[in-house]
């Protein structure tokens, strides 16, 4: 069901993923006895929790991991869902908020760099669809890239949503009754909402200057095997 966007500008939104589907990004990174399992996927928080264990068992079986992973995976998902739910029901932000999303990720041999604006009040947004079109337009063949991009967007949106809840709570406590009008986003974490008046005011054009096009142009690189190996070794080192 679509809520008319205009009605959302006035009232603060209750916490949720600022996308069409309320899917939580879940990231797993578990290491047991020298075996490391890394994964990233989205989870619908309204699914029953019994699904988590089923999912963990299934994953372990499919990937032929040691059975010790089952509890670890289930626990990790469970705790991340619990964190998400702890914010539910709280006010997120009021008024328009458009944030820049930056992508900088590597999936197998593909390197993706991009940045764009995301309207947190647009609950028609669909990171998965966006990623699919991105891959199609940029002619990316690796099927893993699309989900990775969608996940990266969701992760950032999730982060911003949590920040908004926190800052909304703080501003409510600091100046009771005056929240909303003079609400300014907390600048920690780097995801600062863009200045709407500056970008969309009557004096500015929404068409970027030609010289800025390159800055906002998505970059997709295909790496060679050696480069990938080098990068992976580097990541491995920094992890340890």
């Amino acid at each position, binding site marked *: 069901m679509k809520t008319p966007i205009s009605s959302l*500008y006035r009232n603060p939104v209750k916490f949720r993923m600022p996308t069409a589907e309320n899917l939580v990004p879940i990231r797993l990174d578990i290491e047991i006895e020298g075996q490391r399992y890394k994964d990233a996927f989205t989870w619908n928080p309204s699914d029953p929790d019994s699904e988590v264990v089923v999912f963990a068992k299934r994953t372990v079986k499919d990937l032929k991991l040691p059975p010790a992973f089952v509890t670890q995976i289930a626990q990790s998902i469970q705790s991340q869902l619990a964190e998400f739910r702890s914010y539910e029901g709280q006010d997120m932000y009021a008024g328009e908020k458009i944030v820049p999303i930056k992508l900088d990720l590597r999936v197998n041999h593909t390197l993706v760099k991009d940045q764009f*604006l995301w309207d947190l009040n647009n609950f028609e947004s669909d990171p998965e*669809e966006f990623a699919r079109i991105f891959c*199609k337009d940029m002619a990316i063949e690796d099927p893993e890239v699309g989900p990775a991009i969608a996940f990266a967007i969701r992760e950032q949106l999730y982060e911003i949503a949590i920040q908004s809840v926190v800052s909304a709570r703080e501003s409510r406590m600091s100046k009771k009754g005056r929240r909303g009008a003079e609400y300014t986003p907390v600048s920690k974490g780097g995801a600062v909402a863009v200045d709407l008046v500056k970008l*969309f005011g009557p004096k500015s054009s929404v068409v970027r200057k030609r010289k800025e096009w390159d800055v906002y142009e998505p970059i997709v690189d295909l790496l060679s095997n050696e480069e990938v190996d080098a990068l992976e070794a580097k990541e491995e080192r920094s992890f340890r």
Partner: protein
Amino acid sequence: MGDSDSELELYTIPSSSRWFAWEEIHETERAAFREFFDGSSVSRTPKIYKEYRDFIINKYREEPSRRLTFTEVRKSLVGDVTFLRKAFLFLQNWGLINHAAPSASDPDRDGEDDDCRVRVEDGAPGGIRVAATPNSLKPMAAARAASKSGGSAAGGSLKLPPLASYSDVYGDLIRQKEVTCGLCGDNILLHYSTTLMVVFIIIRMATDINLRGGNYGEKRSAEDFVLSESSENSGKHDTVWTEGETLLLLESVLKHGDDWELVAQSVQTKTKLDCISKLIELPFGELMLGSAHRNTNSNSANGIMNNAKQVQSSSSDGQENSKTNDQSPDLPKENEQNGDVVKESPSKRQRVASLSDSSSSLMNQVGLISNVVDPHITAAAADAAVSALCDENLCPRDIFDVEEDEGLETERSSLSEMDHRCPKDDIPLTLRVRAATATALGAAAARAKLLADQEYREIEHLVATIIEAQIEKLQHKVKHFDDLELLMEKEHAEMESLKDSISTERIDVLRRTFRSEITRWKDYSYVKS
């Protein structure tokens, strides 16, 4: 002005998207992007939407054969990517972008945009329409021509305007007036043969030339187009008049006179324009005015031909008149059209106000047209008209001669004066009307001719000036080149002497070196390496 005079750019879009106009935002768009038009948001305003839309379309049109992708567009636009994608898909679904580009060859795509998009496999798609370029003043001319051709043959593929040669030859002149003259132009082209076109073009050229002198800043918008198209359609399809309607029309004309609004109201089933054109088409010399001097229903093409002759001859010297002139009922129509043409010319400002009302009467227009030209031209035209009428009607010329002097005055004056005069004179009203219209025609044609001549002389003069200037420029250039050559020669000579002196010096140095001590070279062996 220079820019808008440049070549028309034609783009094809599916006929389903004919609502699109650069200047405005259509209901379809409003419905699709409601949040942009309720004024609740800073980042969603109609202006921003329009900027997005125009940019995306322009971007596509930079290279219409290539498929524009969303990722390509969004780097240039500030805004929520989700919305940008929505707008992009909207434009794509309507065929405003990417419709001429090869469609995405992605078999596993769900057919979300394949449903509405017009696929272009070979040749142009069906139901094609030509859209305007932005900021162009007269793009609708081509569109109208195209849509007109669509009417004549079942639309299957892209059609050129049927009168290609016509628009080529007079393209420059007519382009400006194509839209505003649409009504009368179409009527003529649709209903009559090319003979009439000659007359029409002569007069139109004149008004065009006139226009160039004056300022014509009037804005031609989509409404103009719509209007002329609809009236054209009505001219084609809705002019089937039943007996009852015709009678009703005549009755109401008798009752309400020139008040066409009222006439149209009482006829009910027809529009104002329909009523006017119908009445003009009617042989109302008989029905309305009861003249007995005329053949029953003269062939319109014939009549037009004669009219054309008359116009041309009276425009040439204003005295010669046509002997074969049988006054057909189309003459008033012709005059009406002239009136329209004149009406379209904003440079004649004093008449725009009075003529802007399309329901103003025939006689009014006669008077006004006659007012435009010099008195002696009007006199000549009136004379020609009168003698033609006399020839045709076999009535003594002295009917007119009696009031010749005063008649000329009145014919140039307004309708009220005409009415004033009516009771005391005994000339049949039919003759009077015909004489007046003929006079007006002749006068207008004469004026057109004058203006055309004047403009032609002007152009000749200007061209001569330009050529002179060019020749002068060339001469200057030649002179400069001569100077340059001289300089080069001098320099060359200098260089030669310098070369000589350097070589002699070098020889001298070498000689001295050798002479002084040859073994010395060995000491400086590193110099050589």
